[in-house]
């Protein structure tokens, strides 16, 4: 399993691995928002939590179709299914590698970009906490979507449509936690719900992903 994690990280960091893709997209969204809504700092600081969360979610979505499609095209998935590694574990590891190369950089860069949106100074802890708790769920759910569409050529659009509804609860509670933190309110409840969603998806989703992937490979 460590071999698979290291291989995925190495592939992501090498040329053409798509490591910077999500990060660049997130940056572009957040940089463009002040231009599109105008330079009103009061308005920006109101919408900042929502924009940051939406940007992170879309950036995550953007990199999903590479998650399994590349391994499917070169035959690695077939070989992986016949390997001694349980498919559930392999998919969990792939989701972890996706989070480390996509979600984690987004979490780390979010405070910097928050500054550009005039994010309320007291809310940074909550923003980072909500993203750190929420983005793993995005990767795990995304792995399920990728497994579901694995046999389909250019299935990126279908993947997005399938995954978006599953992302909604995470987005609602994540953005709510960040908003409350920025407004100086108690954000514990949405954070706990967010953590609950993430833990539940990490526990259950790999089994669903492995099942649909086995069907998809037939």
């Amino acid at each position, binding site marked *: 399993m460590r071999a*698979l994690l290291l*291989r995925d990280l190495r592939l992501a960091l090498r040329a053409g*691995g798509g490591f910077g893709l999500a990060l660049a997209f997130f940056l572009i969204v957040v940089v463009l928002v002040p231009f599109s809504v105008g330079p009103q700092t009061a308005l920006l600081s109101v919408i900042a939590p929502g924009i940051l969360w939406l940007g992170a979610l879309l950036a995550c979505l953007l990199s999903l179709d590479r998650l399994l499609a590349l391994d499917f*095209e070169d*035959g690695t998935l*077939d*070989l*992986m299914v*016949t*390997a001694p590694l349980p498919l559930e574990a392999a998919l969990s590891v792939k989701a972890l590698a996706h989070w480390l190369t996509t979600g984690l950089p987004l979490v780390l860069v979010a405070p910097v970009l928050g500054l550009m949106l005039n994010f309320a100074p007291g809310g940074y802890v909550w923003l980072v906490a909500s993203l750190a708790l929420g983005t793993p769920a995005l990767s795990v759910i995304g792995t399920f979507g990728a497994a579901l569409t694995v046999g389909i050529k250019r299935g990126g659009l279908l993947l997005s449509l399938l995954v978006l509804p599953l992302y909604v609860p995470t987005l609602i509670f994540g953005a709510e936690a960040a908003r409350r933190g920025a407004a100086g309110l108690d954000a514990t409840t949405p954070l706990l719900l967010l953590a609950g969603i993430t833990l539940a998806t990490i526990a259950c989703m790999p089994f669903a992903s492995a099942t649909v992937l086995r069907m998809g490979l037939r």
Partner: protein
Amino acid sequence: MELHVTDLNLARAGVPVLTGVSFALQPGKALILRGPNGAGKTTLLRTIAGLQDALSGHITGAEDRIAYAGHADGLKAMLSVSENLTFWAQVFGQRSIVDALAAYALEPLAERFAGTLSAGQKRRLGLARLLVTGRPLWVLDEPTVSLDAQAVAMFADAVRAHLAGGGAALIATHIDLGLDAEVFDISPFRATTNTRAGASDEAFL
């Protein structure tokens, strides 16, 4: 442990292709699978490898003992030859890739990215992967595609060494490998019925 295939009925994309396939494969033996294009060789091999389900019938002695090599080699273009092999060795719990590199004369290419290899070199790397799995039963689908005569000889040597070590091999191929192996022609098992009993979307119609 023998591989036993009993009364296997197979479908591809919902259309039955083979019915009543039965054979056995003892350790130390190889079985060459023959049949015209579209006869169902790949379907049979994928079913034995556990990648798809049979309509009916039994396969014993295959689970967790198989190293499968299909049409695609499962190589990562942006990893070097030795990184590709090391990955599979670690997945299968093996340590050394030295023997596998030597068997297919891949040492001079060890540090090259797999994406820069020629088609034949890629195939040699894909076949070298079998040696680092440590699995006793090789299931190979057209393993000699894009290999030159010299590489085919390397492959035949590797199979002979594998058989001598108590392994077994099931190979679908059209060329003569010079192996002392039984030939199993699957064309008599061609399914004639026009039922759509194996349609994968059956449940949704």
